[in-house]
């Protein structure tokens, strides 16, 4: 990304208004540079996605690498997702008990917990946790391969690195995210229920029965499967940032950080769009 935000130092103190226009034009310039940089980044991301897509749908298929990556994404994320999901369950449980009892709606507790966890918090927390864990992992791994010419070596061996490295990682993220979301949801519900029973005994069976009363597949399935889109975002951005890295060890660090920041940001932005989309399509 180009940054044209250089500040010119005038030789003599210009009149007040002159300095102001200069500052304004500098600000406008760097804003323009930022916008330009953003569009350039987005354009390159689009080209990268197209390359990966084209490589992914044509043989040879890299099944072995895909399985390795599924294992990698799953096993790396599992412990963090379990912990984050459980913590979210407890937090919602505490908050819900407090708010609901203030409005005298304590009987709503199971449904509140179930809906908050499965519809709202489970997917987004899983998305963010995996962005951090897997996004950084893919970004750093591919970046270090790039700066040590290992990706060039793969290409020189007549192997398409978009197919072998990027496509497998992106697909692994797409496939694993919904599964990890289910894990996170399950931990959230279990720990949320557990936190509640410590104060007010409630059988798990009863809790589940009340919580899912009146729920259909439409209530939960789209919310769980939308996380496949998060997977696409995480895998795509991390692979892209990794494979375009330049500049030694420093570049590797930057790629890892950028992968996490951008993937998290776009997961949240995608959530906004997807929530609206799901409300319209699955009323």
């Amino acid at each position: 990304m180009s940054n044209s935000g250089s500040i010119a130092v005038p030789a003599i103190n210009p009149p007040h208004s002159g300095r102001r226009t200069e500052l304004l034009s500098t600000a406008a310039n760097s804003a323009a540079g930022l916008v330009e940089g953003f569009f350039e980044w987005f354009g390159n991301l689009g080209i990268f996605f197209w390359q990966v897509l084209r490589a992914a749908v044509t043989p040879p298929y890299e099944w072995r690498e895909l399985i390795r990556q599924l294992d990698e994404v799953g096993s790396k994320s599992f412990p963090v997702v379990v912990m984050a999901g459980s913590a979210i369950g407890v937090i919602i449980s505490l908050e819900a008990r407090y708010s609901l009892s203030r409005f005298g709606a304590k009987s709503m507790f199971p449904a509140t917990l179930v809906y908050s966890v499965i519809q709202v918090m489970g997917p987004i927390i899983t998305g963010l946790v995996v962005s951090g864990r897997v996004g950084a992992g893919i970004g750093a791994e591919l970046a270090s391969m790039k700066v040590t010419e290992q990706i060039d070596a793969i290409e020189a061996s007549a192997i398409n690195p978009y197919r072998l490295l990027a496509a497998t990682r992106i697909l692994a993220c797409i496939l694993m995210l919904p599964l990890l979301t289910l894990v996170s949801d399950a931990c959230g519900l279990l720990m949320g229920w557990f936190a509640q029973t410590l104060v007010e005994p409630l059988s798990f069976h009863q809790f589940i029965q009340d919580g899912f009363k009146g729920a259909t597949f439409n209530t939960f399935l789209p919310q769980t499967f939308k996380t496949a889109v998060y997977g696409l975002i995480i895998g795509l951005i991390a692979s892209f940032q990794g494979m375009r890295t330049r500049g030694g060890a420093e570049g590797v660090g930057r790629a890892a950080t950028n992968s996490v920041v951008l993937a998290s940001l776009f997961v949240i932005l995608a959530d906004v769009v997807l929530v609206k989309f799901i409300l319209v399509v699955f009323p």
Partner: protein
Amino acid sequence: MATAYDIAIKQEQSEKDGIAPVIAVENLRKTFGSHMVLNGISLSVNRGETLAVLGRSGTGKSVLLRIIIGLETPDSGSVCIHGQNIVGLAIDRMGEIRKKMGFLFQHAALYDSLTVAENVAFPLVHHRKEMSRSERGERVNQLLAEVGMKGDFGKMPSDISGGMQKRVGLARALALEPEILLLDEPTAGLDPISSGEIDDLILKLQRERKMASVVVTHDLHSAKTIANRLALLDQGNVVIEGTFEDLQQSNIGFVEDFLKLS
């Protein structure tokens, strides 16, 4: 009408007859930003021939090799491999051509998550799917033996020295029995004995398999041993191209200095 197949057959025949070059680089230009690296380079290599590329550090020898295998795109000019221009070729089409090429990177570029043996086996795993596991293992052992690294197959690249990494990189480049060999300083960082062994190996391959090779080197002795022709690069141009004797007889100041100081 001549089909692409006819043209390919004709090219192959001419290559065998030694008329058409296997690698033909025409008027290559490459800049990075405002930094001009190659300024109109033309070179060609025939079947069974080794071209040594010499030049000061930073003149663009590695960039030239990377352009020949399509890792870098030139600003203008053409690179023909077996008569086909590869500039701007899509990655999978390029892959078909790269299967016939072996490339040794200046810094070896071994896969650091794989062992030495797995590094050498990597191209075989991907392109010789019909090979059984034991056949592959045998081939890897044979390749490692050729570069004098037989005992180190289980080690990780980070646990072996730079010169050893270079030799493993060479074994990997030879795995698919390429017709074209591009080597970026194969003997740099090697002791005289190992470096003599590598020279012998390159000579043997050239004799037995009639490979076309481009070897970048700083080692004048090795260049003299393995190369049929030498090309000396300076400031983006080929200063002189010819046999070692041609270079010795040249009265271009840069060539004299280069030979005297090497």
